[in-house]
């Protein structure tokens, strides 16, 4: 079977490394399907996806992936408990209306959940607000305040706190610096631009 593997974004590559072969995966906000495609062909994963845009779904379906047009806030309720081994929400939680509920849903549908998000506590974000006095527009947050789909920003520390509140076990954390490289950071909430959390049920 011929298959052209596409170069994965660093955060997706890291997520792919976490996932055990032959597992079942639901990728929420799967975009053009790059991660699902990679997992299907390299880890013989049984993958499903949810994507907001018609264009994204078209690309996914064209790749032979099973993806439905929908969104995290309204469509997760229809999935049964324990439907998959991993429910993945990459770079999407900050755009949901009810992140806490979405997180609950991820760990209901998935045995484990993988959540990645841009860190609003990164020093560049802080500098933009404290020194320039402007809402931050960075590479990973590339929108002006009036047009951003990102309505629920959080910092890495905020996310730790929410997991504690919700009694969610954090199995693994990975942080990416501003160059998009995965690093062992001493003060991730200040120097990490993106975070990846592997979560388990309590």
């Amino acid at each position: 079977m011929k298959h052209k593997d596409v170069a994965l974004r660093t955060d997706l590559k890291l997520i792919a490394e976490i996932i055990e072969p032959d597992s079942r995966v639901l990728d929420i906000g799967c975009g053009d399907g790059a991660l699902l495609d990679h997992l299907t062909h390299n880890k013989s994963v049984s993958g499903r996806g949810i994507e907001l845009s018609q264009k994204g779904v078209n690309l996914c379906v064209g790749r032979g992936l099973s993806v439905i047009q929908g969104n995290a806030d309204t469509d997760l309720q229809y999935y049964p408990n324990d439907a998959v081994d991993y429910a993945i929400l990459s770079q999407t939680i900050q755009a949901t209306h009810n992140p806490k509920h979405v997180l609950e849903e991820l760990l209901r549908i998935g045995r484990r959940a993988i959540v990645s998000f841009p860190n609003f506590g990164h020093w560049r974000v802080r500098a933009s607000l404290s020194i320039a006095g402007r809402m931050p527009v960075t590479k990973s947050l590339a929108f002006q305040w009036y047009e951003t789909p990102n309505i629920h920003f959080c910092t890495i520390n905020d996310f730790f706190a929410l997991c504690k509140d919700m009694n969610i076990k954090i199995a693994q954390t990975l942080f990416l610096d501003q160059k998009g490289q995965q690093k062992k950071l001493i003060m991730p909430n200040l120097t990490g631009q993106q975070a990846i959390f592997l979560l388990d049920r309590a």
Partner: protein
Amino acid sequence: MTDDNSLEIQIQDKSVTIPGKRIVFDDPMPLDSGIELGPIEVSYQTYGTLNAAKNNAIVICHALTGDQFVSETHPITQKPGWWAMMVGPGKPVDTDKYFVICSSVIGGCMGSTGPVSVDPKTNKPYGLNFPVITIGDMVRAQKRLVESLGIKKLFCVIGGSMGGMQVLQWAVSYPEMVFAAIPIATAPRHTAQNIAFHEVGRQAIMADPNWCHGAYLEEDKVPRAGLSVARMTAHVTYLSEPALHRKFGRRLQDRTNLTYGFDADFQVESYLRHQGFTFVERFDANSYLYITRAMDYFDLAEEHNGMLANAFKDSPVRFCVISFSSDWLFPTSANREIVHALNAVAADVSFVEVQSDAGHDAFLLKEPGFHETVDGFIKGCAERWFNGQGAGTGAGEGLRL
């Protein structure tokens, strides 16, 4: 008994010779109503070649007023086949690769057994003595046809509107015979609004004195006015306000001023009258009653205690559901109901809402993203079906995700 010759059918007050294939099943077929219908005849067309393994067959299910002439000039209207843009060499349903089968539904008027057929008991046309049929009955007849061609498992079943209902019925009734299913612009049940519009159409037909309580063939009459009004009403439901506005607006027909009368002053009136007028030349009034009734009776959840998801439990079928944003007859919400039910049983499903202002009829058009979705889905399925472990001819051999 198969016959590749043309056959003669009765459309309204004239008999028409149509080309094509047909098969007669002498064994009576049990209907959902409990009645047995037989012998039954199924007229159909095929495109492409059935391969040696007999595993490259695609069944196309037509809509309410569609027929078996999918991809060729229609023998009566002389217009291109109703899905010529979708089906053909190099098209999304590629007849260079696949063996495409489309039969006219039973209850219809294009050669398959229906109310215009002769009742062997009376030697007269069935008329209203024809039993009420269902979507399930239509699919049951199609299954007989498919089996008679030596096909154990279909690669794909595809169709829009009432065709989409048949696709869902195929997947629910015979999941072991279907590898992939593409229900388009359809619904898991006919809603009160759907039934209401159909009832208006039926009442228009039955109010026509030429309908003669269904015996117009014997009386040598044609309920033209009634069937025409039924078509006009239905046609409005196939479009959308923006589409009508774009096509006609409030423009006048061949005149510069209003006539202060009831002539077709507006282009939209003239268009609808033309739609009604031409429809009666190719369709039978009683068939219209029977087929709309079959759609009204359709409710997939009903035989599963009202739980639609149960209809799809453990389904090995791969689904691709497609809706259109401006379709208010079978809206995206109805199509999403199917998707959510499939999600609930962790079935394999893709779903796209195609942006279009063409209303329900968008499924007959080449809207951006629509054909690409069908093309991509079929190619993705083919990769699994022919190269993967699913390449078999027996039931249930498809790859299960």
